[in-house]
């Protein structure tokens, strides 16, 4: 009986260790810092050539679609509700070679994943996501999204 329980324990331990190692290794490999434009610019040197998730708002009148190059360019600023006047001036440029997603509107919240080029202050994005439709809910909330994104 004892031997069998030992076997069960050993098998469980191996399985669990395998799981944990796999997850930790992948987390380390894939993890990318989540930053707002101001924080990214402040850490430009360390973040150069690194994958990053940028969270902010689409800067007004910054969006351009180059039909020849199949290229969407825009700037991301701090989320309005978290930014001071000075911070709201600082933006990070984004280049995205895919279709502009739905809900992509000036001032709308956006998440950008990609590699940061500190010299050019630009992210070559592999994923751009706008807030999903269920949402339109900013007015409902009495509190802001301060510090959360």
């Amino acid at each position, binding site marked *: *009986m004892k031997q*069998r*329980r030992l*076997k*069960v324990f050993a*098998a*469980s331990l191996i*399985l669990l260790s395998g*799981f944990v190692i*796999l*997850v930790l290794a*992948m*987390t380390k490999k*894939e*993890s*990318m*810092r*989540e*930053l707002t434009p101001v924080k990214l610019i402040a850490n430009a040197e360390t973040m150069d050539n690194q*994958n990053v*998730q940028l*969270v902010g708002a689409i800067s007004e009148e910054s969006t351009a*679609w180059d*039909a*020849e190059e*199949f290229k969407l360019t825009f700037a991301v600023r701090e989320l309005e509700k978290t930014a001071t006047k000075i911070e709201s001036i600082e933006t990070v440029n984004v280049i995205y*070679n*895919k*279709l*502009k*997603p*739905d*809900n992509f*509107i000036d001032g709308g*919240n956006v*998440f950008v*994943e990609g590699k940061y080029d500190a010299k050019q202050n630009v992210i070559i994005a592999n*994923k751009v*996501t*706008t*807030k*999903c*439709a*269920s*949402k*339109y*809910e*900013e*007015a*409902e*909330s*009495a*509190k*802001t*999204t301060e510090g*959360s*994104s």
Partner: protein
Amino acid sequence: MDMLVGGIQSIAAELGQAAIFLSIFSALWAIVSLFIGLRVRKPNIIKSGRNAVAATFILISIATGALIFSFVTDDFSMKYVVEVSSAAQPLLYKITALWGRMSGSLLFWLWLLTVGGAIVAWQNRKAADNLADYALIPIAVVQLFFILVVTGWIEGVYNPLDRFPGGQAMVDGQGMNPLLQTPSMAFHPPTLYIGWISLTIPFAYAVAALLSGRIGSDWIHRSRRWMLFSWIVLTIGITLGGNWAYRELGWGGYWAWDPVENASFMPWLLGTAYLHSVMIQEKRNMLKLWNILLITLAFQFTLLGTFITRSGIITSVHAFAQSDIGWYFMGFIIISTAGVIALMAYRWQRLKSANRLESLLSKESAFVLNNWLFVGLTLIILWGTLWPIISEAIQGEKAAVPESFFNKVVIIPGLILLFLTGAGPIISWKKITPNNFQRMFISPLFVGVVGGVVAWLFLIFRAHAKAAAEISAEVTEVATPNFLMRLWDFITFSGQPMPIFSILCVFASVFVLVAIFSEFYRGAKLRAKRQATSFLNGLGLLIQRNKRRYGGYIVHIGIVILYIGIMGSKGYFLLENGRLKLGESMNVGDYQFTMKDSFLDEHDNFIRSGVEFEVRRNGGKPTTMRPSRHYYYTTGQGEQDTIESAIQHQGMNDIYIALGPLPTKEILGGKMSMPEKIDKETVVNLSIYHNPLISVVWIGVAVMVIGGLVAIAEKSITTPRSQTV
């Protein structure tokens, strides 16, 4: 007339408000009277508690009905109606606006919960024991929590029946986001809610078992159909969400491991684990503690989803409004889990298993491994979802993991689970014997290996054909290697990474299908022989006599189909971006797309602008595809344009076209843009996808649901007195 409607609207809103506040007392009454009645064993007090549950249902139905009435009659004196509806909104979307935003969603959630409570009370009104009455206590506690949330006392969440102060009314509403005005989005949220809420009932029965001390299988039998119902509805709900994303968002995919998607998927995983582990308790009187823990976790994860989406601590594409509500949910999760753990400690002795695992190679062990994997997958997904919080706590800086993290970490446990889908049903109880292995495993394993080899060869030829096409396109001089090198190159995919997971997926899928179909074949043959009837009749009788078992096997077949679909659509899709003018063509895979014409037409609440493609496969018969963009311009329709992809099914594969920005002209002094017809000089940007086996994904889910419906058709088993401890 308007005055009359206005008067009725006003009365309805006031009545709804009053009903919500009264329901606080009915829910409290239910909790107290049921608790006291069961404690002192007074049937009249217990009956009063049951009636209070029914009263809560009636009161919340009045409140929900009042809100729906306000939507249908365009009562723009109500804040919630103004925010989610508009006069121009079609009737269907006026009704579905009920769950369009947080306040209404919570009321809808509460109403479904009261429906569940009323059904439990009604079903068990003549029950010989009080287990269901015990279950009504936790149900009423959860109801009370939701009622308090809906009242609007929590900062950031207002009562959905609130009106503007001073009797003000808006001329029109803001309207629902155009992206939500689709049938699949009309049904996706309520299906998910129904799935989540019906998980409350098995959880309540587990608490009832702890409260009453009847820890046997009775509570499992009583809640079996609820659990299966929840599982079926959640399966449909999650798939509807994926299907909506695929059809509406123009990115060619259906699952992106977003925190909100994960929040809906985790309770499903835990519920699936529970559906398996209860069988061990029923057959072998084991895992009693585990089952209660598992159903508690599954229930708590339905609430955790709200915490994740509403607390604002996680960055999600699903940007729901953030408020304190997430933290209220977290508080409730902590308190209710602590309560269940305290009850488990109190009943510790009765929760001990009567039997132990006899061998690592047995059905019991397969079930335990299955449970470990489901729970492990849930924890991995939770880890990835909460990584921004965890990383901030550990490293002091917020970090996130991308979609690829989830794809990589779930693949190995996912493949082991797939293998178990076939191994579980055919392995023997207690301990595998050489006879069992030889009789049940050899053929499926052999055919599985053959399937894997065929997949390997297919993928080799596919990779080489692709490489050859690329080389000929580049017109590169390639040195001719010797035969052995060529052979080595051939079997190792010319140095490219070998698609080992695809091969393993095909191996496991074939193994499972052979194992399951053999089970059907053996059973049907035996039944036909015993009843002296045909094989098909035997098969029918077999399923009819054991719907739960064979329904489960049908679900397993659906799982295999789903895996194959995911493998094809996620692993082998093609994407080409292009820019075309009218009359020009581009090629994707075997298909040629020629942009023939353009169109611009006006609909009730949007203008549609698009192009017409002639599509030919390998120069064959032409078909037409019409991708477009919708421009919503009517006040209250969101005033934006959306991608309307064109999707054409080619057997099990899809070709999918999404258009980029189209020419527009500014109107109203630049305040709004209207589309212009595309002419010969206009460059149209587009993305074309070839999604192999994507229809197989939807078919797989349909088969799973059919299997679930077969299983749910089996009536609950009457528990022998000896097991009801």
